[in-house]
């Protein structure tokens, strides 16, 4: 198991946003996480990524307990994430957005930064790697564009590209197609699937567009009012009576 959640709980004051959730994400899988609005999916993602503190429970990643680590520590363990709302450095170029997460750059040290020659080569190598990632998500032509000038779908792709720059083992995506045109939404999922196929990255994806999601996932978890309601293959979940009830209002 790459990721194991054990009895995760999160209280916001009196509100229990995540209630005793345990689930497993095997290495190399694409796992879907669905549920009505407010069921606690984003909160769960935030708990794993370390952006909010958990109330109780454990997060085990690659056999290691990472509960309570800070966001940057979690990132360095190999867990990258995308946001429901695109979260980028909008006033910077696409390329700059990709170079920011690169680890251990020489030119970020005050002693080297003013001496261009000491880090120019390294920087060029990082830029080439970033260009390669951009090519994979088909953003190469936009490398010098300000992130704020991208379309909604391109912003999502840029988030994914940024996550790739850190060579993550696990990628958490929160509604990668929210606010994206239907045709592009399918494109995005195709890119996502290739992350697993070409780079072996494991994915945990929160998504509302079930018709697309179900085409790509190996397994689906369903949340409702902070609880894990069910889990199964796409086909099983589509037929699951309770899920249909809470989710589709059948």
């Amino acid at each position, binding site marked *: 198991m790459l990721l194991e959640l054990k009895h995760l709980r999160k209280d916001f004051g009196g509100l229990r946003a995540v209630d005793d959730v345990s689930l497993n994400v095997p290495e190399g899988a694409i796992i879907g996480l669905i549920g009505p609005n407010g069921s606690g999916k984003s909160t769960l993602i935030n708990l794993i990524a370390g952006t909010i503190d958990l109330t109780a429970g454990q997060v085990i990643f690659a056999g290691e307990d990472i509960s309570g680590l800070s966001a940057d520590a979690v990132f360095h363990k190999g867990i990258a994430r995308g946001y429901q709302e695109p*979260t980028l450095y909008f006033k910077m170029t696409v390329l700059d957005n990709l170079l920011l997460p690169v680890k251990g750059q020489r030119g970020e040290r005050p002693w080297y930064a*003013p001496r261009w020659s000491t880090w120019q080569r390294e920087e060029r190598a990082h830029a080439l790697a970033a260009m390669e990632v951009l090519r994979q998500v088909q953003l190469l032509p936009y490398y010098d564009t300000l992130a704020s000038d991208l379309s909604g779908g391109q912003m999502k792709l840029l988030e994914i590209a940024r996550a790739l720059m850190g060579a993550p083992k696990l990628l958490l995506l929160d509604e990668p197609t929210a606010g994206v045109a239907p045709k592009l939404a399918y494109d995005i999922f195709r890119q996502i699937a290739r992350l697993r196929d070409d780079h072996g990255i494991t994915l945990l994806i929160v998504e509302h567009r079930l018709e697309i999601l179900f085409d790509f996932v190996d397994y689906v978890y369903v949340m409702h009012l902070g609880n894990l309601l069910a889990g199964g293959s796409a086909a099983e979940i589509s037929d699951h009576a309770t899920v249909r009830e809470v989710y589709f209002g059948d």
Partner: protein
Amino acid sequence: MPPALLTTSLVNSIQIGSLYALMALGITLTFSVMKLPNFAHADYFTAGAYAALIVSLSGAQNPIAIMSAAFLVGALTALLSHLAVFKPLESREVSLYTLILASFAVGLIIRYILFTMADYFNLFDLRIGIPLQVLYREGFLILSNIFAWVVPTTIALVILLTLLLNATPLGREMRALANNINLARVIGIPVERVKNSTWLLVGGLAGVAGALWSLQTAVNPLMGWAAIISVFAAAILGGLSSFSGTIIGAYVVAFSENTVILFLNYSFGLDLAYKPAIPFIIIIAVLLIRPGGFTQLLKRGGKLQR
């Protein structure tokens, strides 16, 4: 206004404005990256001036050596104040007001350390021993050797700083912190290290400004504090976020304190002793009329986020 007065006051505006700019850029940078309006900045400046003075008294008259010493001492003072005070406070998530008060306290501590030292070694109101000379004279225009030090050094440092911010990995990360520090953490930017580097840079700039200032007037433990309101006025004119806005702000403040007040004195008999009121008037006016300072006018221009 007689042409001689106008010319001299404009030269003074440029010279003093340059020094204000060097200091104000540090304040803008601290505010952008660290979200801290740092009043102790005044005392990094004074610490740098004393470093310069001591190096020059010890016999070294090489301006590069003098300014390097000032940079180093200013930088270390700033870094130390961060590590010892601001960082522990930030980790306790105290309010902005607490941080501002703490910055006053840090400034006071540095100032009184310098006082004690100046008292012990009798270093009050001394000047760096580079004599003032006329370098260029044409009609009413008189340029001194100190002008020739201050202005080009400022221009060079501003260019360097702009390059550093916009064309190096460190600058890229500083801009990222300025824009969204939480995202910076999530994508693995070494936030604390970037902060430390920023403090070094900010303190170093203030130190060099102090060294340059002590070429033209005497060094004493209150010199930074005496200048800080003018410098804050410049930074606030720049909206505390824009480099070009801050630089313009610095020259506007210096211009008001030199040319404008002399014009008002000459034409309307306004007392020169009102000079210290000018930065306050500017600060209040900016906050009332255009809280964003020049940045709102410049929009993209030299904004920290490029």
